[in-house]
């Protein structure tokens, strides 16, 4: 090579001079978005090499990561699938716990708002096997202090009462059962009646004369006359009414979702609930004026022989919880005639 350059020295020098001046020009000339020509040339020369090297290395890397490094992928996939299954279970468990915590939080708020009233939170663990009756089982019983005829409510509204108690469980008779009877009144007119079941999912309010004007949406509260539910608890609203003889039939939408109960509150005494922290906590309305003692509904119930024996001497006759309870008064029924004592 040096011999050739020496032999053709003039040509070599010419080429050197020309190339040097071309490079000199390339340093000065700007083209393609104000980029110097020398940069453009170098880029054009170097870039394909860089691209080739990059694609070669990425190809080798792709072969390595796509094939060679996948030896343990199947086992890893199985392990990950197992892990995903465990995580899904865990996630479901946590979601359930979160929902439960939310429900219990509502119950706790309700309890905090009524510290003076003894009450007990319980979980619904089962329902009735008989489709014609509306009963539920809860996970608390006699050992927890639950007795027959204790009122069962939710922060939304009343649910029913305790009818059977075992040491560890208790059975609730829902307000929409045929055997249920709850003293109730309209919040606006103070007209009293009896809330009972008629076989449908929603209960009806009876013993309201046809003269009473009832409007859909009217609020219905407990009257306290049944000696089971404290006065002023929210029952529900009027869904509609139908004239009858001698009383009209009023259909009621219960405030508590009786078909979706999971957690309930058992009231261990019948004393009235007075909110301490928040007057509207748990949607419970309290502190209403007393109901007139001589109400047609109470009289009707009394004439039907449904008065509680222990409640009969009182000034305001109470409506018996149900016919069976009236027929078989027990010691708890006697206790419930003493409204504001609470359970020791």
């Amino acid at each position, binding site marked *: 090579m040096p011999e050739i350059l020496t032999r053709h020295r*003039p040509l070599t*020098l*010419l080429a050197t*001079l020309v190339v040097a*001046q*071309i490079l000199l*020009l*390339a340093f000065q*000339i700007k083209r393609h978005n104000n980029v110097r*020509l020398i940069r453009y040339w170098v880029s054009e020369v170097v870039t394909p090499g860089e691209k080739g090297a990059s694609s070669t290395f990425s190809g080798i890397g792709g072969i390595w990561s796509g094939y060679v490094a996948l030896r343990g992928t199947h086992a890893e996939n199985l392990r990950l699938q197992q892990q995903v299954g465990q995580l899904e279970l865990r996630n479901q468990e946590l979601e359930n716990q979160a929902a439960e915590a939310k429900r219990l939080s509502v119950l706790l708020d309700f309890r905090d708002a009524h510290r003076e009233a003894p009450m007990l939170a319980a979980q619904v663990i089962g329902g009735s096997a008989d489709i014609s009756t509306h009963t539920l089982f809860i996970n608390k019983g006699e050992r927890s202090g639950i007795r027959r005829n204790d009122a069962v409510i939710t922060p939304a509204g009343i649910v029913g009462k305790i009818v059977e108690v075992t040491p560890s469980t208790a059975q609730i008779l829902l307000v929409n059962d045929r055997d249920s009877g709850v003293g109730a009144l309209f919040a606006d007119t103070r007209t009293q009646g009896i809330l009972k079941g008629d076989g449908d999912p929603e209960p009806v309010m009876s013993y309201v004369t046809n003269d009473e004007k009832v409007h859909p949406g009217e609020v219905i509260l407990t009257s306290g006359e049944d000696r089971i539910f404290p006065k002023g608890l929210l029952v529900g609203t009027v869904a509609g009414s139908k004239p009858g003889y001698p009383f009209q039939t009023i259909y009621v939408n219960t405030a508590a979702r009786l078909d979706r109960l999971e957690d309930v509150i058992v009231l261990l005494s019948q004393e009235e609930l007075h909110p301490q922290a928040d007057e509207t906590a748990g949607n419970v309305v309290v502190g209403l004026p007393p109901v007139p003692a001589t109400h047609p509904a109470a009289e009707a119930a009394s004439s039907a022989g449904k008065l509680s024996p222990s409640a009969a001497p009182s000034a305001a006759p109470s409506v018996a919880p149900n016919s069976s309870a009236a027929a078989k008064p027990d010691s708890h029924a006697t206790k419930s005639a003493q409204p504001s004592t609470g359970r020791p």
Partner: protein
Amino acid sequence: MAYTFNSGMQAESNIEVHKYYGGVVIVVALLAIIIQAFLHRYGRWSEFADLPLLVTIYFGVSKRNPVSGMLLGACIGIAQDALSHDNPIGLYGIAKTIVGFIASSVGARIDTEHPLSRFALVFVLFHVHQAVLAFTERVLLDRPTPFFTVHLLIVSLVSATVAVILFSLLDRLRRQS
């Protein structure tokens, strides 16, 4: 004055190599550039005689040394670029380097003392110079410079005529052997 046409390496040794007094080449080249710049101030007259090109051809042919011819052409061309206001340095440098190389190479093979041969040589090298210039401008500067036009033909003829006169004047600066 004897006009001898030779070819090949053997013929080169028979062709007389002219020598000049010290500094003559530099002074003449500088004068050519200065005069060219001076003429440029007076309109388009300067383009009818590219004096730096003529000086490059003359000394290349006379010295008959390709290396010195192309170096002289490169220096004159770069100086010409430096004096222009928008030409990048190297544009005329490349063209005159090549012209200097060709002129000295041709001068080493043929005797170019006859006015006709000088006329023809300058005419041809003028167009070579223009071709290299146009090619460089087209490729590097992206300028649509023409390779050949009638105007260029006229200019080349005028330049060749001027060259015959100029070369005979420059012959007087030769050192007598």
